[in-house]
């Protein structure tokens, strides 16, 4: 029997998948023809899955330079009648926001779906923003799944709904959907393939003030139709219990926690529950029926009180006397859990807690001091470690000329290299958003008298690093901009980008050189260095910092993970380093204390290299004063 995959046309069969694969499968079932994205946890696997089957299924798939471009690629396809999607992490939607707010005036011809992957607790993000508010601002209806199965179903349905109402839809995923695993029941795959057709219609597609004034009322009309329709969508379900005093309104994934909580408390028959799959717009009729049937309501949702505020508005507008709880009992911070929801419901129903949570909290407190701190770290052999080391040595040399008190400033950015914030490198002073390092550096240059050395990665450079680079040239900011070029979007899973020479689907394409772009933007000092040649790299960076005017350093070395993979494929040996204990001065510790390489460990009073971790980059050997570190 052939093993099932995401492309198997086997309706009714069950497949074990990652949530993001389920989302991709939903799009495949809907016959998506164009998919664009920029990588970002927890969304990247959606486009990766589609890219891996693009040729087989005749789908156009691209990694775009950023989320704004990705969304515009999808929007254009929709305007031409083709089903299209863009997927991105929550903060990626900020980048696409400009196009998005007018796209909702346009609506959709071919089904158009924006997948927003939110990240409560900011597991791998810079903030916890709740993108339901972005959808609210743009009159964009949201489908929010409660399970991996529903994520697949909603994704497939979103394209159909988008065409039915001529409007774009958002599917809002969260980390615990996209990075959840589950068995799903497969649906039918649409084989329909449409040919794009662009019909010139300036009154619809040209947004002058007149265009805005003409199209906004049409958008409002579309949205009013959707508002009625959501009451009968299967994703919203009302279950009224006889004589229930408490009604629970649970949105998206929170519904699964609510179900487990009432089961755990053994009060399934005593509460009414409204499952919300469309937080925007809410199914008003269902909400009113619930509000009228109980005395108290608990709204269960992650992050902001989005549903809660709307439910309160509905209750107020209809004069329904009901007490509504939500964020008074459940925090706006972080993810929900079955425990948190159980405690909130227990409080409102006077139920006995099924587990002594206080005892478990006490246990956690007792254990906490025993636990070692295990933050993620730059990999052994990571070229960023060498770059940071060289940057700091060079910057300190220059800072000395400024006077005793001056500390160089290192604005940083989003990528693996953000891990450079940890000791001992401590080479990241700010990290705010994609491309933010260069932008912040520009501002610092005009108010601070110290060397400013900003850094970002190659993919980040193409995404959002070019406009602030131009700003530095135009406005004469005396800063050094280092591009840590490891030839991949490493943090999110080594996706290709415009500097790699190949596309999402593995086709060869033009390879853009960062140094060419910097020169073309008017930067007068541009040098390419190999961070593994520490001496030369440090000298070049020092020259760049001393240069009067904006300077660019491209620190180029392939990501060690990719390099090791390629070496294995070429059957090339990886030769680790080791420490000659006769030469090592145990009091020195430079390799341990300056590099923070996970392969260099101290055990039984000795400094050693774990040969199973060491890929042989040799940076430690370069900084060892005693020449004690040698390749085996």
């Amino acid at each position: 029997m052939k093993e099932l995959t995401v492309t198997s046309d086997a309706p009714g069969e069950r497949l074990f998948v990652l949530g993001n694969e389920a989302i991709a499968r939903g799009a495949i079932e809907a016959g998506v023809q164009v998919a664009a994205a920029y990588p970002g946890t927890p969304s990247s696997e959606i486009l990766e899955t589609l890219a891996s089957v693009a040729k087989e299924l005749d789908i156009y798939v691209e990694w775009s330079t950023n989320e704004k471009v990705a969304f515009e690629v999808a929007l254009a396809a929709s305007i031409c009648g083709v089903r299209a999607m863009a997927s991105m992490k929550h903060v990626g939607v900020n980048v696409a926001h400009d196009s998005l707010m007018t796209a909702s005036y346009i609506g959709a011809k071919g089904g158009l779906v924006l997948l927003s992957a939110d990240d409560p607790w900011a597991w791998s993000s810079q903030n916890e923003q709740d993108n339901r508010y972005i959808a609210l601002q743009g009159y964009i209806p949201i489908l929010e799944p409660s399970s991996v199965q529903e994520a697949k179903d909603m994704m497939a349905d979103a394209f159909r709904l988008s065409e039915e109402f001529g409007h774009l839809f958002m599917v809002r995923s969260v980390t615990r959907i996209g990075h959840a695993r589950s068995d799903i029941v497969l649906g039918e795959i649409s084989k329909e393939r449409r040919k794009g057709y662009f019909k010139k219609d300036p009154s619809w597609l040209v947004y002058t003030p007149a265009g805005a004034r003409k199209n906004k009322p049409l958008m409002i009309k579309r949205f009013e139709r959707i508002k009625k329709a959501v009451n009968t969508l299967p994703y919203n379900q009302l279950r009224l219990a006889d004589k229930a005093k408490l009604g629970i309104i649970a949105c998206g994934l929170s519904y699964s926690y609510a179900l487990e909580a009432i089961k755990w408390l053994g009060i399934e028959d005593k509460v009414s529950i409204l499952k919300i799959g469309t937080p925007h717009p809410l199914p008003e009729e269902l909400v009113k029926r619930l509000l009228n049937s109980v005395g108290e309501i608990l709204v269960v949702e992650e992050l902001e009180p989005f549903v809660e505020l709307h439910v309160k508005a509905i209750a107020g507008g209809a004069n329904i006397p009901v007490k509504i709880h939500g964020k008074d009992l459940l925090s706006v911070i972080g993810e929900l859990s079955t425990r948190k929801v159980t405690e909130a419901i227990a409080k409102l129903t006077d139920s006995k807690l099924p587990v002594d949570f206080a005892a478990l909290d006490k246990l956690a407190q007792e254990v906490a001091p025993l636990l070692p701190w295990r933050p993620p770290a730059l990999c052994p052999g990571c070229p960023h470690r060498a770059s940071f080391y060289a940057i700091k040595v060079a910057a300190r040399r220059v800072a000395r000329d400024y006077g005793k008190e001056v500390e160089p400033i290192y604005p940083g950015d989003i990528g693996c290299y953000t891990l450079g914030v940890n000791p001992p490198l401590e080479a990241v002073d700010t990290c705010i958003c994609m491309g933010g390092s260069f932008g912040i550096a520009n501002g610092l240059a005009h108010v601070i008298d110290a060397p400013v050395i900003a850094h970002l990665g190659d993919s980040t450079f193409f995404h959002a690093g070019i406009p602030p680079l131009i700003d530095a040239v135009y406005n004469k900011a005396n800063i050094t901009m280092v591009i840590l070029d490891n030839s991949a979007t490493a943090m999110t899973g080594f996706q290709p980008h415009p500097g790699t020479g190949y596309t999402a689907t593995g086709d060869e394409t033009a390879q853009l050189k960062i140094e060419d772009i910097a020169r073309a933007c008017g930067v007068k000092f541009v040098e390419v260095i190999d961070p593994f040649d520490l001496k030369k790299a440090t000298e070049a960076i020092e020259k760049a910092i001393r240069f009067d005017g904006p300077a660019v350093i491209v620190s180029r070395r392939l990501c060690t993970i990719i390099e090791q993979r390629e070496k294995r494929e070429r059957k090339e040996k990886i030769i680790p380093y080791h420490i000659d204990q006769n030469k090592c001065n145990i009091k020195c510790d430079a390799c341990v204390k300056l590099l923070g390489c996970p392969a260099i460990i101290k055990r039984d009073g000795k400094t050693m290299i774990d040969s199973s971790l060491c890929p042989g980059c040799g940076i430690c050997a370069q900084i060892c004063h005693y020449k004690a570190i040698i390749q085996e």
Partner: protein
Amino acid sequence: MVREFNILITGVGGQGVILMSELLGKSAVKDGLRVRGSEILGMAVRGGSVTSIIRIGDEVYGPLIPMGKCDALVGMEPSEALRNITYLSKSSLVIVNIAVTLPFTVSLGKSKYPTLEEILGKLSQASGRVVKLDATQLAQQAGSLLTTNIVMLGALFGSEQLPINIETIKETIQAHFPAKAALVNIKAFDLGYQACQQALK
């Protein structure tokens, strides 16, 4: 019918935690069981703490194991098992690899690693059954350090608590690896299985 069986796998990025849950999940689905699970990717893989959850049964809805409701905790690394102690109850089974992976913060002098006795003592207080084994050494015996995770998977099955058939998981392991590696991995699985059986005797 299985109502609810919760497995929590913990370890350090690079130890193959995610693969273990993939193999478990696939096997459970083959056996006709419903599966829910969750993991944290991204920041966690770079040598940080990793946890992966597999929940099996018809009465499971959410992706996370509620506190105190873990049936089996598999610790690929002792301190990482300890980090998840609040998921345990007296009826939980704990299987822990005693081979330590020191975080770089310990070498830097920024944090301390507890003694094995402290870790095992705490775990034994929280749960009735703690099985400890040197999975890293058993993996070496099987022929590759890379099979440490499969040794632990074998140990998990050696407890005879799982609702998944042992033939099914072995088939899934066999199908996952190329022929030569599959042989080493099955050997690793068997070594783990036996070690757990012996420990429980």
